[in-house]
């Protein structure tokens, strides 16, 4: 029996959220502003506490003041409302401990039990691991040891969930090793691997767009689609993340997770239901249908000095904490081919890079030419229809079609039908972290990556890493900051008689 109806049935359950790495950037820039906005939008359970867990000594008051400053700066909605913040900070606490010290977890347990009584959080826990990946295992081990991760078989009246940030492993073997370690302390069902791209409205809308619109679903195959381009471009460089990036590179930072998630959503077959596992099963099948990547169809690049927004910027090798002879890739373009009835013969060209002319993430579906070209434009073919799904910024969808220029002759001009979330719905879409944290509170894992998704992605990409380890690039830096990437990336697609879209 329930009093809830319709969409409200997704109401988040009472819980305590413990953020490990509470003094880090992710907490201040994303997690705390997300929690504040969830409260503001009435999405946060009324029975809720948030505990920041970190090494640095700090009082609750100091932590609250810092988080208020962060929320003021990074919140989606501005200015922050004093009354709401005041209510939120009454439920915000700081807990100081090293990640490897048992004592810190015992005191955390006591604290959480007190909160259960005082704030009615009912023993439900979310542990958000916003830390370096090398801390994941030790934190889980200690949480388990302290009895903070429940045995699902025995404990039915309350739950514990663990949100893990990317990267999940640095190759296939390490991903397996990490998973094996985690499973010693919790179950796969308790793990929520966050990929904030999946929390973006437009990524979620991919499913709606594909499966709730018969005109598109019926065209979504190799009979009508010539090829698909996925672009994940950033105009920013690596900023102060030099140390991290030197160990990661673009493949680990963007391709293995975000880009592969988008790719699988575009390529998957219709799920039998909207249940988390039904969707994730289809995503995995899509990833399994990808042919092994050909090394000759991969282009990696690294930016040199150039211009962004008219301002001179340094090359990757001149960035802070970067080896001046670094061979780490900041750009990657690849041709992905599927071996299944839907996509056989339809290449997916994927590119992701830093210091490109602008920040944009989009999926462009380029359709085949009509079977009979009645309206030939002189010696030129008409531009193909293109359906573009903009994931960020300026979320929306556009469709490029050919249209007759008014007048006596049959001259054609491409025009664009454009739908923009911002213009149509008039509100700023929620931040991805808001949706994902809320989903975790609800217990909906649809928008979190399952282990087999991660493994399949690594399985596909690890051979590249192995090859690169043996064959360091000789031409880095091979593109200027502010350009659309290396020349070889143009050649990759042009060899097939196609061209990158001007995003």
């Amino acid at each position, binding site marked *: 029996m329930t009093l809830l109806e319709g969409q409200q049935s997704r109401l988040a359950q009472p819980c305590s959220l413990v953020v490990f790495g509470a003094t880090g950037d992710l907490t201040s820039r994303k997690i705390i502003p997300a929690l504040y906005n969830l409260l503001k939008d009435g999405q946060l359970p009324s029975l809720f506490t948030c505990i920041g867990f970190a090494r640095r000594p700090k009082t609750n008051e100091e932590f609250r003041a810092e988080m208020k400053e962060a929320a003021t700066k990074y919140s989606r909605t501005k200015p922050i409302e004093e009354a709401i913040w005041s209510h939120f900070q009454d439920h915000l606490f700081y807990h100081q401990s090293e990640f490897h010290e048992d004592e810190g977890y015992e005191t955390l347990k006591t604290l959480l039990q007190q909160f259960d009584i005082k704030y009615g959080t009912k023993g439900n826990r979310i542990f958000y691991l916003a830390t370096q990946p090398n801390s994941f295992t030790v934190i889980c081990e200690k949480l388990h040891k302290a009895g903070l991760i429940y045995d699902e078989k025995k404990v039915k009246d309350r739950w514990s969930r663990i949100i893990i940030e990317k990267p999940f492993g640095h190759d296939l073997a390490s991903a397996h090793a990490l998973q094996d370690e985690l499973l010693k302390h919790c179950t796969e069902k308790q793990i929520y691997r966050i990929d904030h791209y999946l929390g973006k409205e437009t990524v979620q809308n991919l499913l709606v767009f594909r499966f709730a619109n018969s005109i598109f679903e019926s065209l979504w195959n190799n009979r009508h689609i010539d090829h698909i381009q996925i672009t994940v471009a950033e105009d920013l460089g690596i900023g102060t993340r030099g140390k991290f990036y030197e160990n990661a590179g673009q493949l680990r930072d963007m391709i293995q997770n975000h880009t592969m998630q988008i790719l699988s959503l575009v390529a998957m077959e219709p799920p039998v239901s909207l249940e988390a596992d039904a969707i994730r099963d289809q995503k995995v099948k899509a990833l399994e249908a990808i042919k092994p990547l050909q090394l000759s169809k991969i282009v990696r690049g690294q930016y040199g000095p150039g211009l962004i927004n008219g301002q001179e910027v340094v090359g990757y090798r001149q960035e802070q904490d970067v080896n001046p002879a670094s061979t780490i890739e900041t750009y990657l373009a690849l041709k992905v081919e599927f071996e299944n009835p839907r996509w056989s013969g339809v290449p997916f060209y994927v590119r992701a890079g830093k210091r490109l002319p602008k920040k944009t993430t989009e999926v462009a579906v380029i359709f085949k030419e009509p079977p009979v070209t009645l309206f030939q434009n002189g010696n030129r073919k008409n*531009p193909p229809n293109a359906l573009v799904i903009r994931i960020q910024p300026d979320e929306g969808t556009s469709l490029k079609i050919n249209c007759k220029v008014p007048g006596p002759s049959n001259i054609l*001009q491409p025009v664009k039908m454009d739908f923009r979330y911002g213009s149509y719905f008039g509100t700023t879409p929620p931040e991805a972290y808001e949706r994902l944290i809320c989903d975790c509170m609800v217990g909906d894992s649809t928008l979190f990556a399952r282990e087999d998704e991660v493994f399949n992605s690594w399985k596909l990409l690890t051979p590249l890493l192995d090859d690169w380890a043996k064959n360091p690039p000789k031409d880095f830096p091979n593109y200027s900051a*502010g350009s*659309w990437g290396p020349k070889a990336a143009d050649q990759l697609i042009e060899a097939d008689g196609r061209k990158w879209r001007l995003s």
Partner: protein
Amino acid sequence: MLVSEIPAALVKLWDALEGTSKMRASLFNLLIVTPNNKRTAYVRDITLKVLERFPSRVIFTTIDKTLSDDTLTASVSLIPGAKGAYDVVCDFIDLQASKQAQAKIPFVILPHLLPDLPLYILWGEDPVQDNPISHQLEKWATRIIFDSEVTDNLPAFAKTLLEHANDCEIADLNWGRLESWRDLLASTFYSEERLETLKKAQKICITYNAYETPFFCHTKIQALYLQSWLATQLNWKLTKTEKEIFQYDSLTVELKAAKNQDLPPGTVISLDIFTPTDVHFAFSRDPKHPYHIRTLICDVEKCEIPTMFVFSKAKSGLSLVNEITHNGTSPHFLKVLEFLSKQRVL
């Protein structure tokens, strides 16, 4: 303003449209690259004429060679576009760059091109003088429209355009301006018989407007294009050139200069075709309506009733509009370029 301030300035302009009847629209990207000289105002004027017909996002780039430092500045505005049911406005981004700063232009422009819409470039610099930014922009261009007015060496210009044509669609403003004359001749010599008459013509006289203005001084180009077009389409064999005379076996083509302040500089004023059988095809402008062309065909015995052909597209700026809406590179124009590229000096 700094070029980094362009996005914020555009958003501010768009926000100001809220609640008004004005609507932003863009059918394509129009990039203009022009030196800062007496011709700049004219180029700006024809750009505005394009907007009246086709709303588009304009990036108007002026290279100012008088600036010695690394200057690159911008301004943005909304320009009224085509009149219709809505008040359409278009984004107009103005860039001013010193010679030293021009290498930055492709980097500045790329983020501001509207995706999935054609990019037409009006290249107002002389393409003969190699400019690295033209090659960078070329790969994104749907078509590049050159302006032969800016060159002092037409054969070299033609040769350069042919090189560009390998990678991109090309056109030229003067070629566009000649479209009405080409239509007129095609409709006059519509039959095999008439075409044969033209092919065997003895003398052709092309009178062009040699009246110069500060922004238009290479007045012979349209006349040269016209005679080259006839020669290449009718397979005449050039035997000799001398100043303004072209000798093709038994045919002489003469370009004659005349001055007429009422017509745009360089315009073909009249055309006379004489055949060995004493047939005279005279195409001349009506003195009262200079865009009305009177065609009179006479032989030794009689004259046909004169006919009138209206040059409806000849108003200023419409040649650029025409070039934009034409698709593909004209094969006729390519033949003309091949012909001209083989000449020594014109």
